[in-house]
């Protein structure tokens, strides 16, 4: 639909560089409404490219493995895992915390950056919001699988029970149910609200009738009217305002699972901030791990420019330092408290049977990310991808260290024991990754993966796109 009288809106600015030499423009030169529409909105309407199929098939095979592991779990019980007494919490909880953490980047980018009027969220917020949703799906499953009797999971919800039984609201696990539930709902609404106008675009560009019908249905009859836009923007802003404290609360609540308990290594006031920082840390890492390949496959470099990667890298560096500080403070407080249990816990963590895991954690989460000080690495998509990979692994290990190496030697030496994961533990972990990727690939295939309307804004107001 190239209109002859289309004015070249973006031709009047050239790629600019910040004094420090970072890429500053959020939009490659020469973008028109139409180029934007075409690159983004036509993806769902065209058949998927080869790489997509490869990825999708691998993902669904992993998902299959997940289903096998879960089926066997339901048949036999959690005994198929490595959990025991004292280490009664195992991979399920580790994975849960890990996934919830990953989810956080999405909300952070779409909500907090929106409130801060950071234009560099535009091209990635949709993407990371989707990531949030799917990560929360994986996270939400884990506690359910973790239960000894999963078929009665609904007992954690308040409902008028014939025996007048209620959840025990002092338990952090019940807080989790509400926190994660709320988080999922709000993220879903936020994401969908943003999608509606773009779905309308796809609807209007669709050629095939079924596409028109399908996207038309989900577009809810959106007409781009000024009134719509106004309420839409307000609602969007309000949701962002709500999501901001929410995202901080969710991982704080998750950290309460540990902080409220009396287990040495869990019972610590540093946990909420340090968990939130870790969450955003791992979230951005995961976002990069996904965006970098997708950007390549779908040739989105002119929309997701180097500036995005650079900024995300900066955030990782900051949160990474906060996390490192958290590690340090934990050790310091153990020593400073003079509490023999805390001191022993710290020694056990670093030099006990799981010591090597701890040092692996230091490598992945503290040492490797220091590379991000270098602008060259921040601008090099490939290296950035590798660093992000390390951080993702590192954050999983962090949760392993917190959960397992605290429990395996707590107060009562006569019951100390080791935890060794079984093949079912590993299948559950990698299987959940499969679930996550499968959902993500479906999203990439069927929905506009970048907010078209917001990108149009950048096209319409080029100055926004270049503010360093």
């Amino acid at each position, binding site marked *: 639909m190239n209109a002859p009288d289309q004015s070249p809106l973006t031709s009047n600015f050239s790629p600019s560089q910040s004094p420090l030499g970072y890429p500053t423009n959020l939009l490659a030169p020469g973008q028109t409404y139409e180029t934007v529409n075409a690159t983004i909105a036509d993806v769902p309407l065209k058949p998927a490219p080869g790489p997509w199929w490869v990825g999708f098939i691998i993902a669904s095979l992993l998902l299959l493995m997940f289903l096998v592991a879960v089926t066997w779990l339901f048949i*036999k*019980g*959690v*005994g198929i895992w*490595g*959990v*025991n*007494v*004292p*280490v*009664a*919490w195992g991979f399920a909880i580790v994975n849960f915390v890990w996934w919830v953490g990953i989810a956080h980047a999405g909300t952070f980018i779409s909500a907090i950056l929106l409130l801060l009027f950071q234009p560099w969220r535009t091209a990635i917020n949709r993407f990371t919001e989707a990531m949030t949703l799917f990560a929360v799906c994986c996270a939400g499953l884990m*506690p359910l699988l*973790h*239960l*000894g*009797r999963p078929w*009665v*999971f609904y*007992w*954690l919800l308040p409902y008028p029970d014939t025996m007048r*039984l*209620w*959840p*025990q609201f*002092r*338990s*952090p*696990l*019940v807080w989790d*149910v509400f926190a994660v539930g709320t988080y999922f709902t709000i993220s879903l609404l936020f994401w969908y609200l943003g999608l509606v106008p773009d779905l309308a675009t796809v609807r209007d560009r669709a050629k095939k009738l079924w596409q028109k019908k399908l996207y038309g249905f989900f577009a809810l009859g959106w007409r781009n009217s000024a009134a719509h836009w106004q309420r839409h923007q307000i609602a969007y802003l309000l949701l962002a305002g709500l999501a901001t404290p929410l995202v901080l609360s969710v991982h704080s609540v998750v950290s309460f*699972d540990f902080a*409220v*308990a*009396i*287990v040495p290594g869990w019972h610590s006031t540093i946990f909420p901030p340090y968990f939130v920082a870790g969450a955003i840390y791992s979230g951005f890492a995961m976002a990069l791990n996904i965006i970098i390949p997708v950007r390549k496959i779908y040739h989105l470099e002119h929309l997701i420019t180097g500036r995005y990667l650079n900024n995300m890298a900066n955030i990782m560096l900051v949160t990474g330092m906060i996390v490192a500080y958290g590690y340090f403070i934990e050790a310091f407080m153990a020593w400073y408290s003079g509490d*023999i*249990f805390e001191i*022993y816990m710290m020694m056990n963590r670093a030099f006990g049977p799981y010591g090597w895991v701890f040092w692996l954690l230091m490598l992945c989460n503290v040492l490797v990310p220091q590379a991000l000080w270098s602008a060259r690495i921040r601008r090099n998509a490939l290296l950035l991808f590798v660093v992000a990979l390390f951080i993702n692994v590192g954050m999983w290990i962090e949760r392993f260290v917190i959960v397992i190496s605290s*429990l395996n030697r*707590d*107060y*009562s*030496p*006569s*019951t*100390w*024991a080791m935890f*060794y994961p079984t093949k079912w533990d590993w299948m559950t972990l990698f299987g959940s990754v499969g679930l996550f990727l499968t959902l993500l690939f479906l999203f990439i295939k069927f929905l506009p993966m970048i907010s078209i309307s917001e990108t149009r804004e950048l096209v319409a107001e080029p100055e926004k796109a270049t503010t360093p």
Partner: protein
Amino acid sequence: MNHPASNGRARPQGAPDGSASRPYQRETDEFVPGSNEWPDDLSRREFLRLAGATLALAGLNSCTKQPLETIVPYVKQPEIVIPGKPLRFATASQFGGFGQGLLVTAYEGRPTKIEGNPTHPASLGATTVWSQADVLDLYDPDRAQTVTTGGAIKTVSDFWDALNLAIEPLKQNGGAAFRILSEPISSPTLLAQLDRVLQSFPAARWAIWDPLNRDTIAGAEVICDFTKAKVVVAFDSDFLYAHPYALRNARDVANRRRVIEPHGAGMNRFYAAEPTPTITGSNADHRIAVAARDVLPLAQTIAAELGIGVATPRNIENADWIAAVVRDLNASRGESVVIAGETQPPELHALVAQMNAMLGNMGNTVAATPALSLPGSQIAFGDLVEEMQRSAVELLVIFGGNPRYDAPADFNFADAFNKVKLRVHHSVYFNETSRHSHWHVPATHFLESWSDTRAFDGSVSIVQPLIEPMYVGVSAHEILEAVTERSPRSAYEILRSHWSGPEPAPDFEAKWRRALSDGVVTEFQPPSFAGAGQSIAPAPSATPLEKRQRSEARGSQLEILFRPDVSVRDGRYANNGWLQELPRRFSSLTWDNAALISPELAKAAGLNNGDVVELTFRDRKLRAPLWIQPGQAKHSVTLPLGYGREIVGGVGRNVGFNAYALRTSDSLWFADDLTIHKTADRHWLVTTQHHHDVTGRGILHDGTLDEFLADPHYAQKPEELPPLGYTLYDPSEYPYKGYKWGMVVDLNVCIGCHACTIACQAENNIPVVGKQQVGVHREMHWIRVSTFYSGTEENPRITHQPVPCMHCENAPCELVCPVAATAHDNEGLNLQIYNRCVGTRYCSNNCPYKVRRFNFLEYNGRLSPSEKLVKNPDVTVRSRGVMEKCTYCIQRINAARITAELDQRKIRDGEIVPACAQVCPVEAITFGNMNDPRSRLMRLKRSPLNYWMLGELNTQPRTSYLAKLRNVNAELVRSD
């Protein structure tokens, strides 16, 4: 001999019928062929039998057996049976031939729990771990279930005919080729019958074989009164655990060690010298680890110091220990006990007897056991085997035991056995000996048949059955009867007529019934019979111990020790899941035996736990995994007996190695010249406790008597603890008016016998999970006994600590449960509501004492019909996915509450006794109402020794401990 229905051996592991409290099986052997081998009608018939068990009860009343059929329908209910209400009956079991008084609980004629008989002097209400486990054997589907010959099922009358056929020809020459082999017998009736048989066959002979025999003490058996003993010196003696009078000994010693207030702290001092740690040694104030071969020289030196004989001119280590012992013995003449174990040679026992006599203990603290007159014409086991070798034996009837498995290796029993023309074996289980006998006759379990027995102290009990035989079963009485009589009477008739004599006294009936209900025969003596009055044990002539040459300067060569296993003993309990899973003392090994070696030896030879070594002894070789045992004598290697069974049920199969393979008649207990060398193999040994060091935490408070007297409150370490009742909350919110249950565990008297663990398992339907699950730390015991070491690794101080649920008032577990599946009741019990539990396991994480247990898998899923019968109907059988833990035996609390409310009164102090407290031989566990200041519980809790485990966490536990005290000898502290 392997018809599926005839024994457990042929039944595949994991088959629904073949699992005596079967360890949890992997899913792989779920539907193995044979799992449906249990004939349907058999289980039904068995079911009728159990319904018919009411007969046993009715029978006990009227003391006459009625035909089974009349009461099967349960139409006319015997007046004493109230459904759901348990009945208790006094009976007795055997331990190495000595009686143990028991009190058995039965529901509708189904025995479910065994307790000690308080009126029985050898029990005083406590039991051993084995008595606790006996009830599981009763329902073991692997028991022999039919008379068999060559694998074919036969009827009992077939056997009677065969027996008569075999005996007739023997009558000519007075039964010259007729031999009887039995375990030690103390049953007056059985001995009388035996005597009758031996008189009708003048040339016949009988022999006793017990792999754990006490022949070395032959005649020198003594009973000690430890309540009078200020000083106790034990030479390689486990008189607190592996001794026929252990329960009584433990109680008496405890009464001399219990300290509550500084005043009246008349604590005895206890020295022990032993080669390998035993329950007894671990409770000594001063224990030294010496090789078994050095015990006699050690004793000789002490004796010499005391003025008996002359010291062997060999320089002995532990000079200061010897000096201290001598000083204390001299200081308390007439108030001390010197005791030696059956594992030591007769010389030592003679010497010990001299010492006791010379110290004036004889008659004060030590007395000879009443002799039991045995029939004559007895020969030693060794001689019997030698006769068999000569093929001089045509008929051999073996009562119980398993000689083909546990006879000394040098006897070459297998060959000799095969040379006997007709071999008859009578035993509860179909074992190695049965396998190679012509006839195997299932013996009745002691809960199934009538008999009598005699305790170590001579007191006699009637063994009365609580249930009709589960399977075809014959008692020894009936077989001996059949040898002489044409038509054997029932065991009951035999027993009763023996006691009543030919013409019963008019008051016999009354006395008889009192004897039955009391469980001890007090009012009449067992009628004597014309037997050559011999001492209780066979003449030691045959035991080759005297022949031993004790070579000088054995220096550092290794010594081999054979010891009964603390769980399976000589192997008779190999198929008992409760005992297999009961952690072995100190090592806390389960489902295995291991060669115990000293840390020094391990270091020197570079050996680690689980390494498989090859032991070479007297040209015989044996491969065994290792366990490094602190406190083990430097050059001693202990081999626990009773494992490596071949013909055994599913539970005992492939468990451990058979140490009998190395045991020879001249080295029954220990000998030199053992060599070991490491192999490449390793064996997976599983334990329930990996760390034996309290790492300076407020878990275990112990000290010395002197410290305590100097500062009675030292054990409470007030600076560590928050002020009592220190709380942010309104203390009046939960006042706990009415009852306020609590418990005290007195570490000072606890000997660490683990009876509480197994009693709890029996009372609370705790499943057996098996080696693989224990290996991943999923054992289910509600009360564990932690063992802690302090001091040097070579000879550590050992402390035992039973840990049940603490029932904290500020319970950390409850706070974190999302569904309130664990909560407090208004009496302060920390409840676990199984059917509300969703299994988050958060409570277990948050329990600082780690007393909670989780059903990671369906551990009760594959119980055979008979195994279901052992379950306590008052306790829920937990299913997969729920948490469980100690409930203070809430079912017993409620039972007491019901009775109390029925006669409108409060529950009396001591009316509620949890299973762990009831079984405890030393009364270390006390339960009661904390709102009753006069209760025994509160008297203990007021003691300055009372402390909270991990008290600084301010969980305010209802279970508290009395600190452990050691009455150390000041002179020895330095060297200690």
